[in-house]
C-alpha cells in the first residue's frame, strides 16, 4: 500500500538526512544526498502506482527519471569538486572547508 512505501521512502530520506548532517566525509555526505534521492524516487513511483484517486499514473515514474538525471548531474559536478578539493588539501573532511575563499 501507499503508506508502507511512503514510510520506507521517508525512512531512507531521514537516514540520508541524518547522515548528511552527521558524517564528516565529503563523499559520504554526497552518498547521503543520493540516498535521499532514493527515498524520493521510491515515493514518487509509489504515488503513481497507488494514487489517492483514479487509475495508476506514470507521472511519478517520469519524475523519478528526471530525478535520476539530476542526480547524475549532481554526482558528476559534486565528485569533480570533491576531487578538486582533495587535491587542494589532501583531506575529505567537510570541516576543512569553512571559507569559500581560495587561499
Amino acid at each position, binding site marked *: 500500500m501507499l503508506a508502507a512505501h511512503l514510510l520506507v521512502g521517508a525512512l531512507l530520506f531521514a537516514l540520508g538526512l541524518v547522515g548528511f*548532517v*552527521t558524517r564528516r566525509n565529503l563523499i559520504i*555526505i554526497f552518498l547521503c544526498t543520493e540516498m535521499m534521492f532514493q527515498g524520493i524516487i521510491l515515493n514518487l513511483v509509489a504515488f503513481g502506482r497507488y494514487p489517492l484517486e483514479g487509475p495508476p499514473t506514470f507521472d511519478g515514474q517520469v519524475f523519478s527519471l528526471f530525478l535520476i538525471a539530476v542526480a547524475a548531474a549532481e554526482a558528476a559536478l559534486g565528485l569533480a569538486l570533491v576531487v578538486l578539493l582533495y587535491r587542494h588539501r589532501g583531506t575529505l573532511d*567537510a*570541516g576543512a*572547508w*569553512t*571559507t*569559500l575563499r581560495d587561499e
Partner: protein
Amino acid sequence: MTAATSILPAGLYATLPLWPLFGALLVGLWIALRVKPERAHWPVVLGVLVSAALAVTLFFDLQRQYAAAPETHAGGFVYSVYNWISLGQPASLEHNQWLAVNFYFDGLTGVMLLFVTVVSLMVVLYAVGYMRDHHGHPERGYERFFAFLGVFVFSMITLVLAGNFVLLYLGWELVGLCSYLLIGFYYGKPAAAAAAKKAFIVNRIGDFGFALGIFSLYWFLRPYVQPGENPLDYAVVFKYAQHLATAQIGGMSQATLVSLLLFCGAIGKSAQFPLHVWLPDAMEGPTPVSALIHAATMVTAGVYMVARCTPIFGLSPLALDVVLAVGMVGAVLTATMAMAQYDLKRILAYSTISQLAFMFVGLGCGVPDSAVFHVFTHAWFKALLFLGAGSVMHAMGGIIDARKFSGLRHVLPQTYAVMWVGCLALAGFPLLAGFWSKDEIVHAAFERHAAVGIIMLATAGLTAYYTFRMFFLCFHGPLRLPAEAGEHPHESTTMIRPLWVLAGGAVLAGYLGVSFGGPASESFLAIFRPHGLIHDFLHHSTIGHPEHGHGGLWLLYLSAGVALAGIALAWLRYGAAPVADPDARALGGLWRLWHAKYFVDEVYDALFVRPLRALGRLFFNTDNYGVDGVIWLVTAVPRGLGFALHYLQRGALQAYALSMVIGLVAILVLWSWWT
C-alpha cells in the same frame, strides 16, 4: 516586356547577387574548417566570375530586347523572388500589401551591373596578388578579406537590382557595413579603426535622411495605392509620383521633401560636400578596397539612387537645384583640395569626390543618362588608377607619399604604362573614356547656364592638372626610392594583369556612349556623335528620357583643349618631379588652405565632436557620481547589516544543513499542531 524572350531564364538572372555570397559563405566555412588560406580566394573569385558572366549576358540580353521593341519604354522586367514583409493589417491578410524581394532589370540596372561585376572581378583578381607579402604568402586575414569582398559584391548587386526602396535600403546599409568592415580591415591600426568608424558614422547621418525619405514616401503614397500594390515598389512609386508634385507639405511640395531627404542619403554614400570627410580617411583600407568601394562601386550608389529616382526628382525643380549646387560646390572644392595633397590615394580619393560631384551636376542639370554614363566610364579608369596606386604602394613597401619617391617609370614600367592610360582618361584626354562622358556633363551644364558650364570646364581643367601633377611626381624625374621599398622594387604579374583589362576599359568604355557616323567633312571629332548606345539603352529605363540635344563640336574641342592645357601646365611645373613643390610657393596661403582641406574636419570637430563629447562627459559624471552615489547609499544599509550579521556564519557546511533541518522540522511540528 516578359522574360520569355531573354537568353537566360529570368530566375537565373535573379541569382546574380547570390554567387558572391555563396563564395563568401564558403570562405567562412573554409575558415571554420581551417583550409589552407592560400586558396581561400577561389570561392569568391568564382562567385564574382559567375555574377560577371551573368551581368554581361544580362546587359546584351536587355539591349537586344530593347532593340527588338524600341517603342516600349516600360523597361526590362521584374522578377519577384518571394514575399518578404507584410505591410497590411494582420486581420486583412487576403488583400494585403506585401513587400516583395523583387529584382528590377532594366537599362540602368544593366549598365550598373556591367561595370560593378566586371570591375569587382578585376579587383578581386588583383587582390589575390595584392594581399600577399613579397614571398607570396597571404597576409593575416586573407580569407576574411575575400569573404568581406564577396559579401560586398553581393550587397552592391542587391542594391542595384532592388525593385523596391526597402530592399534598396537593405543593400544600401549592407554596402555601408561592408565598407566599414573593409576600411577597418587592419583593425589593429588605430588610424584604420578610426577611419572605419568615421565612415560608418558619417554614412549613418546621410542614411538617416535617406530612411526618413523612404518613410515619407511611404506615408505620402499610401493614400493613392490600390490594394495589392506595394507603396514602396519602384513601379508603384513612379506610377503615382505625379501626385507628389501637387501636394504641399511645410511650404514645399511633397516631391521636394522626399527628394531632398533621399538626396541626404546620396550625399552620405557618395561622399558629397558636407559629408565628404569620410572618403579620404577611408584610404586606410587595403587598396583593392579603395578601388572597389571608394571609386568604382559603392560611392556610385548615391548617383545610381538619384538617377533611379529621377521621376521623383524631376518633379521638383528646387531639389534639382540643390543637387546641382551641391555637385558644383563639391566638384570645385575637392578638386582644389586634390591639388595640394601628396598622398597618392588621397589625391585619387578627392578626385573621386570631384568626379562624383560632376555626376551630381549632371543629375542636377536633368541629364541622368549622362551622369550614369560618367559613372560607367569613371568606374573603369578610377579603379585602374587606384589599383595602379596600389601597385606603386606594394612596390614601395607601403609608402604612398609622393614626396618620398619619384622616377618610378624605371622600376615599374607596366604600372607606368597603365597609369598613363588611367590619368589620360581621368584628365579627359580626347577619345578616351573620360573625355566623352565628362564632355556631356559639361555640355548639359552649359545648357543650364553659362556660369555653371564655365565652372565645370574649369574644374575639368583642374582635374587634368592635379592628375598629372600626381603622375609626374611619381613616375618622372630622377629615380628616388624610400628605404621601405627594399632592394629591388618590382611589380607583381598577378596584379598587373587585371590592370591591363581595366586599361582596356578606360580606353574603350566611352565608346558605348558615342555613336559613329555623321558628316566627316566637318572635322575629325565629328565622326563621333555623343549619345550612343548607352543613352538609347538608358532611355528605356525608369530614368525616363530627358530632352537634350547633343553637344556642339565647339565644346568637344574646348574641353579637349582645357584638358591638354591642364596636362601641359602640369608637365611644365612638375615634369621633372621637383622635390620642392612649386605650387606651394606660388600659391602661398591659398595652397595651405587647400592642403588643410579647407579645415572641414576641424570645423566639424569644433562644431559637433567636442560639444558632444562634453555632453557625454556630463552624463557620465551625473551617472557615475549622482545616480551611482544614491545607489551606493542604498547598498550601504544591507552592507552594514551584513557586517553585523556575518558573525553568525561559521562556514561549516553541515552546521548550516543541521540548522536548516531543525528549522524544517520545527515548521513541520508547528504546522501539524496548527491543523
